[in-house]
């Protein structure tokens, strides 16, 4: 029983720790895709956020300024993507690929100039995103340890769940959200109703970058304490997959990220205790995702106008 509670606690811990950065990025991806702009540059925006977050936190000593600046760095790359795709009507996939190359490229160059190294200087405890409810639970008892593993989590984790709620509300309960969704479904109709489609999309792609940047900052400011070129390796693409999995809805993306996080937790618990080959265990998150996609999710409906540049009618 003790073992079960311990393992369960660890799986939940892993679910949360893996989910947090993915979910920020996935919410970002939702904004962009739903407004009608394909954004595969999430990975590059995360890298920019991951680097900027640690650097700013290191120099200001304040994790929250760092976290915010991580988001802004992501938003900057989001803006580049928006200028290329929304204003200039470039191919969205190619522009996103360019962002994925540009983000890490610029970041590593700046790191080399600033630190004479590709890694940043490790953050001290006070510069990191704090853990809430630390020391509240008595870790000497099994139950206390369980509670500590699950709830004494980074503030960024609590924030991301709040963010899901906010994004859901914005999407489905506000006028802004309705317009945003309409821009991705039928931009011409929006235009005839006097909605500025280009401005809407521009804004959404910037928000998308901002959220992705926050996601990147979680990796380097919470889970570890420094940026390394390998800090962001594929999380951005998994986030995009989670959005498709979740049928382009924030609540769906939440489930997608949680599923992936849960399977990653399972991987650690199984890999640590059973004799099963680790190569096989490492496949669990991916195999489960594919199976769930096939069996339960059904066809994901892409916003009709997604990926199509909008040209203002003359």
């Amino acid at each position, binding site marked *: 029983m003790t073992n079960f509670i311990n393992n369960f606690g660890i799986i939940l811990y892993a679910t949360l720790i893996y989910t947090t950065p993915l979910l920020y990025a996935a919410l970002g991806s939702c904004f962009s895709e739903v407004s009608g702009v394909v954004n595969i540059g999430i990975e590059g925006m995360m890298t920019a956020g991951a680097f900027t977050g640690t650097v700013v936190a290191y120099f200001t000593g304040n994790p929250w300024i760092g976290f915010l600046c991580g988001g802004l760095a992501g938003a900057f790359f989001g803006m580049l993507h928006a200028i*290329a795709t929304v204003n200039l009507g470039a191919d969205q996939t190619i522009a996103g690929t360019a962002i994925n190359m540009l983000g*890490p490229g610029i970041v590593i160059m700046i790191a*080399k100039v600033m630190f004479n190294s590709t*890694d940043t200087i490790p953050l001290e405890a006070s510069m990191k995103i704090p853990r809430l409810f630390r020391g509240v639970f008595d870790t000497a008892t099994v139950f206390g340890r369980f509670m500590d593993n699950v709830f004494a989590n980074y503030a960024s984790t609590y924030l991301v769940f709040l963010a899901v709620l906010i994004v859901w509300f914005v999407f489905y309960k506000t006028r802004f959200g309705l317009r945003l969704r309409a821009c991705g479904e039928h931009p011409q109709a929006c235009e005839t109703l006097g909605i500025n489609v280009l401005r809407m999309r521009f804004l959404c792609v910037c928000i998308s970058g901002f959220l992705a940047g926050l996601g990147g900052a979680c990796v380097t400011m919470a889970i570890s304490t420094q940026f390394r070129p390998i800090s962001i390796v594929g999380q951005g693409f998994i986030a995009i997959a989670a959005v498709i999995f979740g049928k382009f809805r924030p609540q769906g993306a939440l489930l997608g990220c949680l599923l992936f996080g849960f399977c990653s937790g399972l991987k650690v*618990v199984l890999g640590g205790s059973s004799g099963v080959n*680790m190569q096989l265990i490492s496949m669990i998150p991916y195999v489960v995702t594919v199976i769930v996609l096939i069996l339960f999710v059904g066809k994901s409906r892409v916003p009709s106008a997604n990926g199509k540049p909008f040209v203002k009618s003359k």
Partner: protein
Amino acid sequence: MKKILALVLALCMVFALAACGSSSSSSSSSAPAAAAKTKIGMVTDVGGVNDKSFNQTSWEGLQALAAEDSSFEVNYLESKTDADYQTNINTFIDEGYDLVICVGYMLADATREAAEANPEQKFAIIDDSSIDLPNVACLMFAQEQASYLVGLVAGSVTESKTVGYVQGMVSDAMNLFGIGYITGVLEACPDATVLQYNANSFGDSAGGSTAAKDMITKGADVIYHAAGGTGMGVIEACNEEGIWAIGVDTDQSILAPDHVITSAMKRVDVASQDISKAVKDGTFAAGVHMYDLSNGGVDLAPTRDHIPADVLETVEAAKAAIIAGEKSVPTSTADCPAFTLG
């Protein structure tokens, strides 16, 4: 408009590539001198010269050597992809370098080909022992010995008699870390439990954090990692939970000064300096050069403030016994049944 955009995007991509792949330009130290210089060229693997690991350590060793003895001229070329190895090696050969140091087993094939094609050229390769040619020196490290010493530390300081170990990948070379560590732990504390986890990745810090949390939940109070970037998560989880972490390859106490008790160091800098000096003195010898405790090739990290004095004595005694040949650390999984990852 489209054309301008295409141009901008193309520039972006060129810029990005240039940023990733900048310093192929090499930096050379020491002023020109009249006397013939011993020219040492180092080719990195794709990790690059700032990898906080063997490329960087090796280059720092060479720089220190050149600073100390002006008859050395040292230079490096960074490899961005596997395709660069051959080109970089050939660049040094063409420029008449006395020794080409290839950092990492990934360069083994390129080194072998170049060495066969240029039998007069001297080569050294780090972390590979597969090349048996009269002009190639293979610099190998006894990782199990350093791991054994940190294992002794872990076994001595654990109060819960439970310690953890996270490995980045299962392979013969990586397993040496675990075998040495576990041997050390069990020698210092025979009834200790060693929790083991193979992350199967060198870049999964969330996985490292989770594995460490798992071990801490199960009672571990010291965790050693040999898992690169995954280990960053391990060290940070230990730091937050207030237990001891043990670093690897370099002195990792900078990552968590209060909770990294020690690190198992691999002195790639010493090895590259030695082989460079041998070339200068004309004593270059091909074949495998084993760097172990006896020649300072592996050791505990210099930061030792957290290790209790009596434990440090035990470790020093064990080190002396290994150097004197009175004791040996097992290198195969068969000799260390407690190691379960292999």
